């Protein structure tokens, strides 16, 4: 083990995944073997990956060349700090999800289990390869393989037309994005014909071409990440996929887009322009606001979480934008802070979003319901799931002392440092944007309270919910692992920042690690304690201490008597579970406030209706204002082009004739 270089270990992990997948093909319909042996094995391999990545973080970059790929362009692999960090995220979140998946997959859901196993592990392996790739070809192959394998996973239950449509939309956007990334690499290789990243780093492009590369990367990676307005596939694909797959897609796969963005902007491009950062920031915040508003008005659990992922991705892009702005002005320390915030949030989001998605998966299995309006009160029947999901919910709301808060805290700190920027406009606008981030974070809390409150608390809205069963032991282990990750990351951010430090030093030549280490392990203070400090352990300890003390004192001084009685509810005599707020009701204030952002279709009952029904459909403007016009445009053009082929042979001959004349005229 000691003599094994981390990169060899990572390659072994990838090989192990692939072989597990192939085993799955051979055991195509042997459900027990696939779910009880292969998936847990995959989970253990994830853990090994996390360990190798951890080891690699503290070593100098290592390279490897695989004898695959194009002639003269074998697969170059490189394990540097950035790659190692993302591998750590993949391994960490993947381990929990894999073990959960072992208990989750049920028989008879369309695709045979063995094939699912193959697709799942190829998906994992391709994500690791994306991060590891050190040339454009290997990157693109891994990138598209990732899209493809996840597409097949999304359409696992392909008998449902909506799922097929979702898969189609997903793959289409992914493919168009991939072409943009490909073109970005085409710019970066600067006509040398050498597609290794090493060569791209060595090129110095003119600002025009560098900007072209950056914009292409933004489009390409943005499409994958779900940046507004390229997000449309996300709320369709995530609910369609089986829950562990949604967890991986939302938690991990979206992060590969962040990885790509960071890799291109900080590693492959030799310069940064401030307006790139401003653009990223604007796009990111718009995405975040859009995502969170839509999340609050959803009534489907998984769609809600999918929109919440859009929100988080927006924040991540905004953080990258800040890092780019600072770096463009040579303020490396602040750039490192922004990047640290971004990477911290990457890990944090990977954990809590995976946790939430697998939690919804449990609910879905136990109740068969995805609609929030038909759930409720599950904390009584599925306590394990409920309490573990609560951790995810708190982390996702950005509440201290969990992981979501730590990253948001770092991000807000970065925003507050911008008055030092030499650009008169930026230094004025950006701190104001911090308020927008605060608004987004608060709205995320709203969405999460709605999610948890409606699903797990209150009275069950359907009678069948009372038969819901709790998670099995494998599922519990998986969820516990993820929840523990959220807690640990939240409580010990300093230690985690030391890991991120390796990445920022690598990319920016600056890291927070030294400074953070100075103030001790207890306190997170990126610059100085006077400037800003946050100690999650003290914080948590303080709250816990006060609460426990209060509890003990109350018991000691007074008493612990308690009596159960029917709920009072202002004395209302007759109550049913239907009287609780529905999901739509809970989102109603937000719907009203942000009405211009949404596209509402209301069906209000009239006084004469015998069976009055109230229905509100929340639509996405970008779908109607952007995508449908594009689709119509394509259709229109296709109709016009179709006129070329009207079946009349004389006309065909005429084309040939005119082309001939035209070309002769041209060359004459």
């Amino acid at each position: 083990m000691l003599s094994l270089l981390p990169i060899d270990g990572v390659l072994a992990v990838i090989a192990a995944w692939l072989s597990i997948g192939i085993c799955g093909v051979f055991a195509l319909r042997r459900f027990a073997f696939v779910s009880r042996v292969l998936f847990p094995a995959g989970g253990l391999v994830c853990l090994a990956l996390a360990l190798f990545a951890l080891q690699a973080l503290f070593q100098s970059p290592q390279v490897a060349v695989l004898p695959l790929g194009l002639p003269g362009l074998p697969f170059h692999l490189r394990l540097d700090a950035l790659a190692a960090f993302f591998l750590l995220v993949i391994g960490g979140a993947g381990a929990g999800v894999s073990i959960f998946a072992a208990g989750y997959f049920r028989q008879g859901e369309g695709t045979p289990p063995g094939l699912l196993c193959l697709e799942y592990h190829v998906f994992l392996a391709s994500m690791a390869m994306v991060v590891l790739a050190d040339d454009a070809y290997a990157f693109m192959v891994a990138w598209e393989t990732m899209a493809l394998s996840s597409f097949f996973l999304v359409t696992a239950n392909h008998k449902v037309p909506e799922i097929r449509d979702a898969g189609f939309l997903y793959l289409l956007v992914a493919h168009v994005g991939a072409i943009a990334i490909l073109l970005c690499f085409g710019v970066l290789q600067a006509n040398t014909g050498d597609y290794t990243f090493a060569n791209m780093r060595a090129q110095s492009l003119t600002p025009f071409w560098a900007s072209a590369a950056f914009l292409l990367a933004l489009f390409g990676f943005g499409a994958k990440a779900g940046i507004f307005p390229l997000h449309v596939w996300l709320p369709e694909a995530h609910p369609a996929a089986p829950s562990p797959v949604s967890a991986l897609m939302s938690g991990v796969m979206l992060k590969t887009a962040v990885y790509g963005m960071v890799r291109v902007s900080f590693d492959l491009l030799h310069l940064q322009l401030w307006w790139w950062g401003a653009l990223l920031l604007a796009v990111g915040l718009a995405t975040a606001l859009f995502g969170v508003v839509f999340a609050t008005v959803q009534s489907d659990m998984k769609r809600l979480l999918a929109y919440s992922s859009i929100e988080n991705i927006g924040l991540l892009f905004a953080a990258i934008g800040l890092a780019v702005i600072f770096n463009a002005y040579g303020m490396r320390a602040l750039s490192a802070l922004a990047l640290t915030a971004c990477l911290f949030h990457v890990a944090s989001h990977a954990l809590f979003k995976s946790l939430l998605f697998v939690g919804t998966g449990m609910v879905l299995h136990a109740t068969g319901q995805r609609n929030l309006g038909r759930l409720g009160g599950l904390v009584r029947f599925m306590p394990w799931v409920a309490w573990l999901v609560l951790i995810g919910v708190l982390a996702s709301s950005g509440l201290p002392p969990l992981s979501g808060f730590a990253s948001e805290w770092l991000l807000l700190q970065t925003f507050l440092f911008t008055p030092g920027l030499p650009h008169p406009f930026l230094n004025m606008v950006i701190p104001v944007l911090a308020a927008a981030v605060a608004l987004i974070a608060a709205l995320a809390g709203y969405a999460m309270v709605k999610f948890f409150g409606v699903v797990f608390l209150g009275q069950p809205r359907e009678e069948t919910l009372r038969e819901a069963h709790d998670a099995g032991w494998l599922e519990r282990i998986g969820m516990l692992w993820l929840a523990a990750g959220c807690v640990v990351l939240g409580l010990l951010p300093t230690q985690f920042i030391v890991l991120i430090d390796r990445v920022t030093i690598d990319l920016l030549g600056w890291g927070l690690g030294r400074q953070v280490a100075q103030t001790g392990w207890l306190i997170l203070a990126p610059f100085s304690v006077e400037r800003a400090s946050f100690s999650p352990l003290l914080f948590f300890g303080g709250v816990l201490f006060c609460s426990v003390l209060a509890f003990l004192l109350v018991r000691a001084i007074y008493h612990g008597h308690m009596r159960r009685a029917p709920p009072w509810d202002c004395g209302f005599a007759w109550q049913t579970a239907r009287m609780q707020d529905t999901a739509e009701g809970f989102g109603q204030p937000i719907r009203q406030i942000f009405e211009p952002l949404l596209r509402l279709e209301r069906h209000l009952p009239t006084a004469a209706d015998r069976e009055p029904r109230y229905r509100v459909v929340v639509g996405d403007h970008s779908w109607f204002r952007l995508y449908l016009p594009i689709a119509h445009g394509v259709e229109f053009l296709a109709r016009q082009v179709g006129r070329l082929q009207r079946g009349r042979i004389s006309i065909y001959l005429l084309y040939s004739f005119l082309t001939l004349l035209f070309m002769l005229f041209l060359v004459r």
Partner: protein
Amino acid sequence: MTLSGLLSQCLALVLALVLAPLLTGWVNQWRAWLQNRSGPGLLQPYRMLHKLFNKESVLAESASPFFRAAPYIIFGCMTLACAIIPMLSTDLPLSIAADAIALVGLFAVARVFLSLAAMDIGTSFGSLGARREMLVGFLAEPALLAVLFTASLIANSTALTTIVTSLAHREFAIYPSLAFAGIAFTFVSFAENARVPVDNPATHLELTMIHEALILEYSGRHLALIEWAASLKLFAYSCIGLAIFFPWGIAEAEAPLALIFAIPALVSKLAIGGFLLALIETLSAKMRIFRVPEFLASAFMLAVIGMLVHLLLGV
């Protein structure tokens, strides 16, 4: 951590726990007087707490453990909040645990737990209250943060102690940005502490109630803790406001003896603040719940304008 630091920390904590109900009583008393009522007396909150603690707790049949844990957590959060706000002295060992942003996070934790607990029983009023509380919260929280950001930008720090130190002990300067921030903060405090014009703590009117709807199902010691926590919240908010906008009298870390003068200063400032609060409450009318977002949005805007003013003028 110095001995004096520990001392001021403990003193602040105890003072907060003890004085918080009194502040509530003071405000309520003044309100009664201003409305030409005789009022229940200053110490009524204490009597109330005592009564509730003694009473048996009646729990709804469907209440989950979450419902029972929430009051303690909320109380713990508010206690910690009072501990980290520099109300008497800037020499607070615990203040490293949380800066301005984390303080807002702390309030958010309490709010989320309260809302979730309200949804737990599954009554119509509970979820109504939770929804309204979160509505108020999602607008008030960023506004509060923006207020704190303005102060942070002036002080170049988000640590509360540093903010207070730099505001209180630098040479006297007029910060127009803080004026905006101050108005915004006032708005936010009204909303956050369930006061008129946003909420009326004295009624159980289903069309308007927010805070009361949340705690409908609580009784006995749980209710006592929540009420106490609410008092603590009012206290904490008042202290934040005083610390940022009227920071005079707060002891510095280097001068532990100033603590002796800090206590009366704080008490008198609180007394004036409480009176003004009661006055404004009396003079304004409760607004419709759908007006609340507008009210809070204007608070948010004011706070942002405050930041902009600071960034524009550089002061």
